[in-house]
């Protein structure tokens, strides 16, 4: 939320103001203040334990649990009051503006959820044995309203403050988070139900599974970051072999993601194509360096060695479990729509979708970066070239998507290779 536009500020102001009005309106007459206090502490604990789930500062916390418990135990206004605990979360991340917005958002979600609970026929107060299972319907309504309001308010702020280009796959992440939230919401009715048996001791026991889930989510996120960093580091290591293709995998990966996002691919497939892009050329390891860096045209044998690289790449990454579709992409990324590519000579729709996407991104990056036998071409020229070969070498739909994405978001071409003969990039063994 660093560089907020005026609209963004107005929006945040409106959310906070609406929350303040709700809180000011009351009524506070029938409120059990010790309940509100304990639930407020529970909410602060949840908020303090929030997990960062994306690089852009989107954090997930189990607040829903505490505010939905408050909806049942204290009603709409009490729930709104409990949600003010968001302001006091012991978390260093959020700026004051973020804190205010989050608090306003949770106050509004909780209040509306409370209203929905009452409207659906729910009875406010600690539920006794007779309240079940009748309470589950109204509670489910309240939970859905809470998560939906939260989801919309949050997405609106991301939409208003979105950066140019956006981060693909984020909406999918949000849907998963919303479902997670809903799952935790179920704890709310449990806290409310246990209140009459375990009293204020309830939150202590309930917090344990929550913290374990939080731990698992954090571990997952950490592993995923580690995974991406490791794959990228290993790909860079492979690229040291050919000075001219440094950064090629990263860029092809980026281009493939641009195309995939542009044509509205599912987030998990976008994730897979990103790895496919990074790994598409690992098979080049099997091609002698002298062939890769050759300035003149290749002999038939050398050309055969180059043509083998998609299959070799496939052999290497075949055992990576999640990559099924990516494997096809890696194997066929040198096929052509007119059937004159390699290794299988597939044509048209026979070529897997991933391979058609990768082919466009691969060729584009090859054109816009230096090679041993020619210099880089400017982006507009490469775009013209892509268009020219659409329908022969490339799938026209993906060329259009790519061109549209480049025209909107731009393309960072690699730095030109400085010297004609680069200073020795590879070390040699003289001592042998």
């Amino acid at each position: 939320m660093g560089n907020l536009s005026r609209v963004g500020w107005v929006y945040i102001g409106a959310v906070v103001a609406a929350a303040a009005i709700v809180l000011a309106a009351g009524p506070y007459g029938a409120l059990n203040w010790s309940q509100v206090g304990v639930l407020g502490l529970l909410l602060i604990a949840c908020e303090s334990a929030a997990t960062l789930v994306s690089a852009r500062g989107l954090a997930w916390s189990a607040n829903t649990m505490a505010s939905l418990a408050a909806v049942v135990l204290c009603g709409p206004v009490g729930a709104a009051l409990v949600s003010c605990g968001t302001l006091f979360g012991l978390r260093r991340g959020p700026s004051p503006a973020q804190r205010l917005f989050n608090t306003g958002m949770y106050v509004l979600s909780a209040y509306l959820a409370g209203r929905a609970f009452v409207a659906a026929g729910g009875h406010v107060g600690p539920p006794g044995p007779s309240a079940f299972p009748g309470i589950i319907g109204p509670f489910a309504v309240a939970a859905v309203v809470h998560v939906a309001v939260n989801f919309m308010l949050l997405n609106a702020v991301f939409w208003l403050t979105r950066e140019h280009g956006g981060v693909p796959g984020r909406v999918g992440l949000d849907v998963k988070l919303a479902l997670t939230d809903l799952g935790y919401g179920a704890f709310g009715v449990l806290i409310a139900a246990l209140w009459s048996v375990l009293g204020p001791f309830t939150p202590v026991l309930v917090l344990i599974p929550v913290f374990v889930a939080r731990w698992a989510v954090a571990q997952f996120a950490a592993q995923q970051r580690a995974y991406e960093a490791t794959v990228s580091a290993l790909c860079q290591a492979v690229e040291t072999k050919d000075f001219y293709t440094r950064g090629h995998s990263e860029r092809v990966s980026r281009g493939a993601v641009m195309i995939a996002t542009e044509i509205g691919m599912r987030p998990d497939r976008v994730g897979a194509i990103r790895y496919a892009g990074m790994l598409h050329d690992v098979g080049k390891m099997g091609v002698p360096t002298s062939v890769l860096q050759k300035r003149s045209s290749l002999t038939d044998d050398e050309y055969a060695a180059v043509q083998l690289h998609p299959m070799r790449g496939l052999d290497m990454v075949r055992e990576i479990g999640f990559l099924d579709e990516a494997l096809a992409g890696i194997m066929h990324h040198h096929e052509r729509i007119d059937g004159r590519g390699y290794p299988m000579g597939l044509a048209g729709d026979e070529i897997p979708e991933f391979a058609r996407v990768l082919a466009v991104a691969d060729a584009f990056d090859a054109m816009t970066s230096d090679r041993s036998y020619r210099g880089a071409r400017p982006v507009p020229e490469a775009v013209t070239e892509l268009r020219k070969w659409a329908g022969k070498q490339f799938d026209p739909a993906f060329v259009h998507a790519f061109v549209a994405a480049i025209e909107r978001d731009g393309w960072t071409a690699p730095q030109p290779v400085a010297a004609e003969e680069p200073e020795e990039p590879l070390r040699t063994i003289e001592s042998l």
Partner: protein
Amino acid sequence: MTPLAGRWQQPRRGQPEPGARRPALDSGHWLLVAFAGLLLIWSVASAAVHGVHGVHAALAFGALIAFGELLRLNLPGDREAAPIATAGAMAYALLLRVGEDPARPGADQVIAVTALAMIVGALPHLAVGRPARLTAMSTRLLAAACVAATFRPLANAGLIGSRWWSALPVMLGLVVFAWLLESAVTALIRTDALRTRFGVAFGDEVRVQWPIAAATGASALLIPFAAEVMGLAAVAVFAAPLLVTQVALRRYAGIRATYLQTVRALAKVTEIGGYVETGHSARVSRLSVAIGRELGMAEAALLELEYAALMHDIGQLSLRDPVPGGATVLVARDEQRRIAEYGAEVIQQARVLDSVADIVRRQSDPCRPAAPAQPPPLPSRIIRAANAYDDLVGSSADPDRAAEAVARLRLDTACEYDPRVVDALGRLVSPA
């Protein structure tokens, strides 16, 4: 991949090699499974004689247990867990009241319901060709049976108070005890299968399982109290949040597995590039892990050792021309060190594997270096010996050649190789 001679070649339960045979159930497994079978037969017979108390509760908890068994998950290190089933079984064993009515199922009935539900939950897995893991199921049944056999007689005799502060400590103690028992049994089985030490295996088990055990245990304590208020709806309500925890755990376990597969796959770049012999990295990593286990290393350290061993030759990518046969043991020390240094740099780029990078960096240092230098860490010494051994023996299965290679390494234990490591290697490749 040609199998090498020696005991360490036996397929490990940890990461079964493709096509490898699982070890047949040995005496420990048989004892456990037979005991569980007897428990099943006794409990079903006894429950049939005494009649079923509380059919609805039995069905509800049975359904939860079967559902949890259906959703069993694999944790890192090839461990099976069924958190929802375990929570359901323990909660049933700890049940005091359903709504207003006291619950009085006998221990035999609890065990019978648990065992039958587990079998029902395993059936769909069998139907799609995933074999049931009898050992893991038996261990889970044993833990639940232990809680039921202790708590049910006390509760049914009315010795457990109705207020939470009198009942909760007993329940908590039992749940913790059951968990420790389950860990101990699992550790015993793994000690057998993996040739590790009981203390180490038990420590690993406790470390890996405690977050899940905490979540499962807390749920098992909460459900009986919730059932006093909500009746059997508590069982349904509780399945949802536990499911969220389970989903997070599953994703975490999934990415851990993918990570290892990917590092294994990408470690083959050195083979495809012709820098090392085919299968070298895989063999060195398997041998290193076996040595590390023989020397009593814990699981977390073994994982780092495995990563380091897989990537120990990554540094060779910096060479323009491959070392003949990839045998770094034949290369001058300075070159070895430079290759190791470059490999460490590559791994360090991933930013999350710094300790692995450190292991790789020190892999070519002698075990007893000249005065000021510190000796390399144990994993580096293990990789050094395993790498040297594999360079000498390769994929050969000849026991004489193996003994010869160990003898040659042993000659160098004065300063080059760690004598303890070479001893362990000797025990592994040429069993007495």
